[in-house]
């Protein structure tokens, strides 16, 4: 049992661990996915910037550069051909896509959080020189011609940023400016570097991670608590099962004990019965044997005559019938029927007196009865008779032990209005020692010296009365003896 429990709890613990692990790793996967989505969003944002810049540049390139009125302090671009013209006193300066990009980026970079810059490994304008990331990115894109973008997430010295470069390839329209650099159509010429400050992104990630950590703890704790609850429930239910098993076992043992006692008391009752039969048989046996002796003596004296022989044989026949009917009566009386019967209570009383009469007479005991009701009762007759018989036997034993003359047993039967009958069995056999009067109904308690007496008689009387006959029994001492009083519920008492 202990071993089984240990295995069970271990399985429960491992199960909980795997469940928690599975849930948290699923959650981690989800977190990873969330992070990915956030990255995708950043990348998409960068791509959108890039494309919009490229579109603006295409527009510029399509018109082979645009001219803007010279304001502020901008000067014509020295790297461009036909870099300006003057019309009606105003100077118009040519702006090519690269310069336009720079100018737009300068405005943008002042106003927006997203910064971008045009750059090239081979810049016409030294201001467009690439930084280390840009150099790395452009070199990569030069090698991998099928890729359009290069990006990386920086996390250095507490500054977290997302850097992105989109590739600018050489188109026909570009060559008007860039032919001098030796570019061919399709060559990589540079890129737009986009720098998106991504505090909010990392904040979200951090939040997600923090949340995820909390979530994992929560999952682990909840699952372990559940496992503990399950373990406790299992433990309690096992305890209860164990307890129930023990209880059932005890009940079975008790029932067995009661069965054994019932058997023992039946055996004792059987012994009583045999002794009563012996008393009943004494007279007929003596008569038969004297009848036989008469016949044998007549034979010896050669004086046998038909009349006397017939008389003797008729007497023998009569006594044999008495023997046989005694056996029948006892058999009937002690035959366990295990079902209730309808019987007049005074029939039971009379039967009882007839059966005990001889053995009581033998000990000079007078049995009297006073029955004030002739109830038709519905009960277990054999068990009821056994109870009364035992009480009479008990009285008889007390009388033999404690009294030499004027021995008597008196039985009374009264009816109460509330469907109860009261049977009192009183004797003048000296009564019960006050010190043991509380114990006489306990099993294995006996004052008798007979070693065959197991001390179960009164216990069984009480048990039978309580369990089968809806009755109770009490005892009290009278002037000269003891008085047992049985109170029994009966279904009805039709007189």
């Amino acid at each position: 049992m202990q071993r089984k429990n240990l295995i069970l709890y271990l399985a429960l613990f491992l199960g909980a661990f795997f469940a928690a692990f599975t849930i948290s790793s699923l959650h981690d996967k989800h977190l990873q996915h969330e992070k990915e989505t956030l990255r995708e969003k950043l990348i998409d944002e960068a791509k959108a910037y890039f494309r919009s810049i490229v579109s603006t540049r295409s527009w510029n390139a399509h018109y082979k550069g645009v001219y803007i009125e010279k304001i502020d302090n901008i000067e014509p671009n020295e790297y461009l051909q036909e870099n300006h013209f003057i019309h009606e006193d105003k100077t118009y300066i040519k702006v090519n896509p690269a310069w336009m990009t720079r100018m737009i980026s300068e405005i943008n970079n002042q106003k927006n959080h997203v910064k971008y810059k045009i750059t090239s490994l081979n810049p016409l304008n030294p201001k467009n020189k690439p930084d280390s990331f840009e150099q790395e990115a452009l070199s990569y894109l030069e090698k991998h011609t099928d890729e359009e973008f290069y990006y990386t997430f920086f996390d250095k010295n507490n500054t977290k940023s997302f850097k992105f470069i989109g590739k600018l390839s050489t188109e026909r329209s570009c060559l008007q400016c860039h032919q001098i650099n030796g570019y061919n159509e399709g060559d990589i010429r540079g890129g737009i570097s986009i720098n998106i400050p991504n505090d909010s992104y990392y904040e979200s990630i951090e939040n997600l991670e923090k949340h995820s950590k909390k979530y994992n703890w929560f999952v682990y704790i909840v699952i372990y608590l559940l496992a503990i609850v399950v373990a406790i429930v299992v433990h309690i239910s096992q305890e209860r099962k164990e307890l129930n098993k023990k209880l059932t076992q005890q009940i079975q043992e008790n029932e067995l004990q009661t069965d054994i006692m019932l058997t023992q008391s039946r055996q004792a009752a059987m012994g009583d019965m045999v002794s009563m039969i012996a008393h009943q048989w004494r007279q007929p046996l003596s008569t038969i044997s004297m009848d036989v002796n008469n016949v044998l003596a007549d034979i010896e004296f050669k004086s046998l005559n038909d009349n006397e022989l017939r008389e003797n044989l008729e007497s023998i026949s009569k006594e044999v019938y008495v023997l046989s009917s005694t056996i029948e009566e006892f058999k009937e009386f002690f035959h366990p029927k295990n079902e209730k019967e309808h019987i007049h209570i005074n029939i039971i009383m009379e039967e009882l007196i007839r059966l005990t009469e001889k053995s009581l007479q033998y000990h000079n005991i007078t049995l009297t009865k006073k029955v004030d009701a002739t109830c038709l009762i519905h009960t277990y007759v054999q068990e009821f008779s056994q109870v009364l018989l035992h009480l009479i036997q008990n009285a008889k034993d007390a009388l033999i032990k404690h009294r030499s003359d004027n021995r008597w047993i008196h039985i009374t039967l009264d009816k109460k209005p509330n469907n109860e009958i009261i049977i009192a069995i009183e004797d003048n056999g000296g009564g019960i020692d006050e010190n043991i009067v509380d114990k006489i109904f306990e099993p294995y308690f006996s004052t008798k010296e007979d070693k065959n007496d197991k001390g179960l008689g009164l216990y069984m009387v009480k048990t039978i009365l309580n369990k089968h006959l809806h009755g109770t029994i009490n005892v009290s001492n009278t002037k000269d003896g003891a008085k047992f009083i049985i109170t029994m519920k009966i279904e009805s008492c039709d007189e």
Partner: protein
Amino acid sequence: MTDLVELRTKLKKYSVLFVDDEESIRFSTGRFLKKFFNSVDVADNGETGLQSYKNHTHDIVITDILMPKMNGDIMAKKITELNPDAFIVFVTASRDHEEYDGVAKSFKVTKPLSFEVVQEMIEKIAQMIE
């Protein structure tokens, strides 16, 4: 085994009192005793037995022990008080050895009396009465 006929001749002059509370036993035993003794009286308890003895002073008293009103042993004691030489045979169902106080001449047989036991009883009476 002594000849029963011989015993009958020997005992024919004596009178006997038989005391038992069972009518059928009184009848069958009385009938048996009549085959041996001169006269047989019967009584159904110690009291009537004692009364009968007072009237007839039987040579032999054969009695049961457990009886209503007066037991055989009490009656025997009272008879011995009247006549210290009284001869009493106890017929009892009990196989226990019992001493009967205050009775000088007596013996005991156990019921039921088989033919063998009853012959022994008659023989013993014949021996003791002389």
